[in-house]
């Protein structure tokens, strides 16, 4: 049993069609230019199209200029003539975009594309993993709103702290005790950090309200400089230390650290 050569090697025909198209830079307007029409000889586009439609399959040589004819000859073949003179509408490729008016027509596709063995019977959507920390959908982080909405977590944290303390009481020594101690320390530090944040927020709020009151009275709003803010914070800190009687130890530690730092800047004495 032998394999027959199919009558109509479409590839060849398409190839020649493509070659002519590329040569004349696909498009009717540019076709004129590609054919080397001299400026004076340029036939208006509508007229040219009309003549193309009216002409028979064989090339209508009466309309063409000498340059066009030379081009024809160089391209060669009746195929080239047909492209130029005969068909106005190229053969429709099976893969045409479907316009809305044709949406009731059956889909036309190529019959030579091999179909993969597995096909999707049920549409499966891939699960997209979202990180709420970096996702736009989570919105911007606003600490005040965050604290307000997640207030209930403070109770849970307190309960957990109590639990950890209980556990600590049970275990007197060993690795587990150390771990628990670390955990407890962490929790306490988190708590203090939260308290600090809260205090700062309150301060900022107070300042804001002051400013608003002044502005209402008629004064211009005054914004503190960074140095002034630091001074205020320092003053607050001193007050707090004095209240808790840790001022002396804090100051001595500060002096020691500063001394060490200053020693670095002194010239090296050999």
């Amino acid at each position: 049993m032998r394999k027959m050569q199919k009558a109509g090697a479409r590839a060849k025909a398409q190839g020649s069609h493509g070659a002519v198209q590329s040569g004349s830079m696909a498009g009717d307007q540019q076709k004129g230019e590609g054919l080397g029409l001299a400026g004076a000889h340029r036939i208006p586009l509508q007229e040219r199209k009309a003549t193309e439609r009216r002409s028979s399959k064989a090339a209508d040589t009466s309309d063409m200029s000498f340059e066009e004819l030379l081009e024809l000859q160089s391209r060669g073949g009746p195929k080239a003539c047909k492209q130029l003179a005969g068909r106005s509408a190229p053969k429709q490729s099976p893969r045409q975009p479907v316009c809305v008016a044709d949406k009731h027509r059956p889909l036309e596709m190529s019959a030579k594309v091999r179909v993969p063995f597995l096909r999707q019977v049920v549409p499966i959507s891939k699960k997209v993993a979202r990180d709420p920390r970096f996702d736009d959908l989570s919105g911007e982080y606003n600490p005040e709103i965050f604290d307000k909405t997640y207030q209930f977590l403070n109770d849970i944290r307190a309960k957990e702290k109590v639990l950890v303390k209980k556990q600590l009481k049970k275990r007197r020594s060993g690795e587990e005790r150390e771990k628990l101690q670390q955990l407890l320390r962490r929790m306490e530090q988190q708590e203090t950090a939260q308290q600090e944040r809260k205090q700062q927020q309150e301060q900022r709020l107070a300042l804001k309200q002051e400013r608003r009151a002044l502005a209402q009275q008629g004064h211009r709003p005054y914004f503190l400089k960074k140095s002034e803010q630091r001074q205020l914070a320092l003053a607050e800190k001193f007050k707090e230390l004095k209240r808790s009687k840790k001022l002396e130890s804090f100051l001595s530690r500060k002096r020691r650290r500063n001394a060490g730092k200053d020693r670095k800047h002194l010239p090296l004495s050999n």
Partner: protein
Amino acid sequence: MSGTSPLDPAPSFHSLTPRKTEEEEEEELEETPQEKKLRLAKLYLEQLRQQEEEKAEAREFEEDQVAGRLKEDVLEQRGRLQKSVAKEIQAPAPTDIRVLRGHQLSITCLVITPDDLAIFSAAKDCTIIKWSVETGRKLRVIPRAKKGTQGQPSGHSSHILCMAISSDGKYLASGDRSKLILIWEAQSCQHLYTFTGHRDAVSGLAFRRGTHQLYSTSHDRSVKVWNAAENSYVETLFGHQDAVAALDALSRECCVTAGGRDGTVRVWKIPEESQLVFYGHQGSIDCIHLINEEHMVSGADDGSVALWGLSKKRPLALQREAHGLHGEPGLEQPYWVSSVAALLNTDLVATGSHNACVRLWQCGEGFRQLDPLCDIPLVGFINSLKFSSAGDFLVAGVGQEHRLGRWWRIKEARNSVCIIPLRRAPAAPVAGS
């Protein structure tokens, strides 16, 4: 004087004369499908003209005949020739149905020879029997071949799923589950060729009318084109996404396939190497038949029967549960439609299932409606239905099991070929007072 005579072509044109020979060679160059159609149409017109002139008739009468025939052919080509036959059909009496018994297992497929004189039937026992329509006797039997025989098999060794006969009655093609297509000479039932190439069971076969071109499809999802007279393979087409269940073709170089679980019906335009995709059934599309060049009817295993037109991707008419429901109350399932057939260029459609009847339908105006006409009682799985070319009778291949498997077995049924005569009532007189 070296003056050029007025008859000589101008020097700028003289090199164009070789183009004339090129134009002659144009015919040898590859043609586009439209040009090929044009050339073939012209040939056909010439043939018609010659035929008519040979007859010893008056010239005017001859021209009328030619015009009439041409008109009919044009309508047939465009799929608009439709003779309203369905209204005149009368349901035959059960005693008129001739039952031809001879197969041992369920009949899977059958074909009628174009001259309506013989019927070929194939069954699950891997035999093919040629019956005579007039006498009802077996003319020939192609027995089962043993598996693993050396050389060319002169028979099938697995279930024969499909058969086709060429329109001149010369070649018979049969395809089976062992991926083979066997070509037989219809008259003598001599085995001629074997076509191998399919990678799974061959499920559909059809000859193109007026030619020896054979289209085949298989459970390997491909459609292959062969030439039976020249014993050659032409090409393969792809597109289906699941095993193909059936195939049919008329005189265009087009075939239509029923896609089974794929859920699509595809029309394959072979010269353009493209396919049209239609969808609309919910179940597995098991059978399909062309009514004319532009319309087809298909049946699915959810009991639905659909009429299709080539310009619309959804069915023109859809009849759900065409053969009713069966099962326990609350768990009812529709009867699977196991075969469909249509009388060429008319509006008569027949469908078969296993609810003990063959149902005849009438297609409405423009194939937009499907109305039931009558039922012909026939017990068993109607695995195959075929109308004769003149529309005189309908042949049904009946089995105890479905042609593709053994889901059910109807013990009361007989594995047989049933010839159902279709009588046409004369036109009813206009009702007077």
